[in-house]
């Protein structure tokens, strides 16, 4: 996959940083989107700030830049969540087709679907006989339920089951103990189970829209 980064003169440290950005920015962006409840625009802002802060602290971050950046991202998403209480929210909007991003090609980090079939670049499976409506609605329900979780519970689900981190890695990213992570995981799964079993919530219900007075 071709990447074009023009990040200053090719010093050794720059090369390392560029390699880190190329390797992890996609994963960070995707995690950011899930952490923000599906808000792509805010996710990009978080990614940008995460990378900039990581760059500024590269000396201390470079030994484990992915973990460092993940922790920055988690902290930023918490800040964003707090700010979001008073922020005018955008109209929630389906983004099934993806966003105007990258080169539109499947990324190496694209995970396969649970059924083993690959996802398309747009995120919508196009296999024959697939009930697209059910897929969209089912996914809506999970994402809406995820967005409805308390921030810490959402973080733990994203880190453990999307980023595929261990309990210890999740604990580091969240700045919490491993016991706390396990506890959050248990509560988050229980809450997700409740929400997804509730037919009212199982339908897609986008978050409220705040209207300037």
């Amino acid at each position, binding site marked *: 996959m071709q*990447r074009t980064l*023009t990040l*200053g*003169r090719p010093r050794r440290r*720059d090369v390392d*940083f560029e390699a880190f*950005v190329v390797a992890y*920015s*996609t994963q960070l*962006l*995707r995690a950011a*989107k899930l952490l923000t409840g599906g808000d792509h*625009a805010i996710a*990009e802002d978080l990614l*940008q700030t995460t*990378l*900039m802060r990581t760059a*500024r602290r*590269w000396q201390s971050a470079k030994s484990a830049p992915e973990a460092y950046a993940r922790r920055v991202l988690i902290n930023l998403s918490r800040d964003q969540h707090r700010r979001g209480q008073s922020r005018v929210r*955008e*109209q929630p*909007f389906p*983004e*099934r*087709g993806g*966003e*105007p*991003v*990258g080169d*539109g090609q*499947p*990324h190496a980090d*694209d*995970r396969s679907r*649970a059924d083993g079939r690959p996802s*398309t*670049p*747009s*995120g*919508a499976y*196009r296999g024959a006989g697939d009930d*697209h*409506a059910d897929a969209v*609605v089912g*996914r809506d329900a*999970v*994402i809406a339920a995820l967005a409805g979780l308390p921030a810490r519970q959402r973080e733990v*689900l994203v880190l453990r*089951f999307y980023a595929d981190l261990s309990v210890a890695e999740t604990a580091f990213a969240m700045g919490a103990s491993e016991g706390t992570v396990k506890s959050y995981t248990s509560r988050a799964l229980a809450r997700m189970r409740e929400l997804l079993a509730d*037919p*009212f919530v199982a*339908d*897609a*219900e*986008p978050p*409220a*829209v705040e*209207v*300037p*007075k």
Partner: protein
Amino acid sequence: MTTDEQLIERIQSSMNAEVAGLVPPRELLEAIEAPRARGLRLPSLGAAVAALGSAGAVAIAVVALAVIGHGSSPAGSRVSSGSNRPSPLPAGVAAEVRALEAELAILRRPQTAADKLPKWAASQAAIEVANGPVGAQLIPGLTRFIATEPSPIGRGVERVYMVVEIGKPTGPRLVGIGKPTGPRLVEIGKPTGPRLVGIGKPTRPRLVGIGQLFAHDPSQELHVWVIGLTRGVSEVVSSPGLVPPPADIPLSPAVMLLDSGGIGVVPDGVTRVKWVYEPWGYKPVALYPTIHGNVAIDRRFPIEGPPLLRSATWYGAGGKVIASYSDAYSIDRENRLNAVMQSALDASYRQPIVPSLREHFAVARLPRLKGWTAGGISHNLAAKIVERNPYGLNVGDAHFVPYGGAPHIAIGTPSGAFVIPGSRGACLSGSDPNGSGLPGFSCVRPARVDSGSFHVTTKRSDGSRTIVGLVPDGNASVTVLVTGGQKRTAPVFDNVWTLTIPTSPATLLVKNAAGQRVSVTI
């Protein structure tokens, strides 16, 4: 009973599908400064131009300040000894500003006293931008004086400035249709043939707009025109005269056509600009505007009044064409977009309505309205339909229910709700009855509609929220219990009700489609 493993698998697959294909925009990564690198390497010319068309959060505008009668040239003004950005940049835009600076030499030089807008004009511009439909905030430290021009109205002189503004967050917008390649495309629809490339949020939710400012002082007037070199321009601005770059052409010189000539922003490396006008009934005429810094200006028109701009071209050193735009491409693009949209809507008209909706909701039994066109449908709704119409929506059977039970009309009343039935669900789009604002929009499955709990919410900045709901027949009114036990009642017209309540949780008491009384926390 779902096991934990099954639940986790469902969560995992949904999360993966939700973000599959999502990669960071190239310009976002390019804007990140690597550690220890002193400033960004200037991108190649092509990259600069591409980025010029896609920087997201900030916009360039050109300000023409007419000083009638007593216009003094700012050329002799003293150079400011301060920083070129005296005030800190708003959070989240520093990278975009740096990207602009990398592409526009005029922004890289220090701001001088002459670059600053007069106080009255700056305050006017700030107010107008903040209150405008798309802009949010000017960045005073990036204002630059461009040139002094004869006033187009024949009196005094006119100073032209470049200003940079931050667009405001916005909702969904229609981007357009185009080639299946390029960094800014969103693919929705069939993988062959024309593709609808974007009904969705912009990647960076800040758009740019166009506005004109007039000072209160009758001897001075200020116009702000956003020439727009950001991604937003081609997506948003629809003001007459603007020739937006097509969304799928990365290199596209935007030209602002004013009543008295054209203005365009050009990146570094552009040495010559050609605009070809085609006056109605006349042969095309080519003009070569003067480039002042990073702004091309030509106040001439071949005939009175702004004619059509047929093409615009940027040339670099040696006459090499850097970018060009032709309106033929734009027209073709729009036609293809309309064709895709119309095809989706035509198919939508044939969707059957789920029987339970017909049975339990009077609004779904209303006759199809004559004269209904898809022209007024929201982008939210359009996206649902174009995206394979997962709820089987039938736009032809949509009905607008004005709050308060006013007579049915198809479109045009600002306060009311659209009910859009379908074969696999229904959508509800309700505007805020207390004022303007984004409508709430949601789609659900038939079981949820039958439950009587289907509603959309708009939160207001005063802490209250407006609920718009859809209930089955048999509900003459609905009751909402708010915190403290206070009971609020809302009448139901054509199955639609609305109520403004405090933000705290409330309980909705309604009858469901089976006639049972149910209570739902909302």
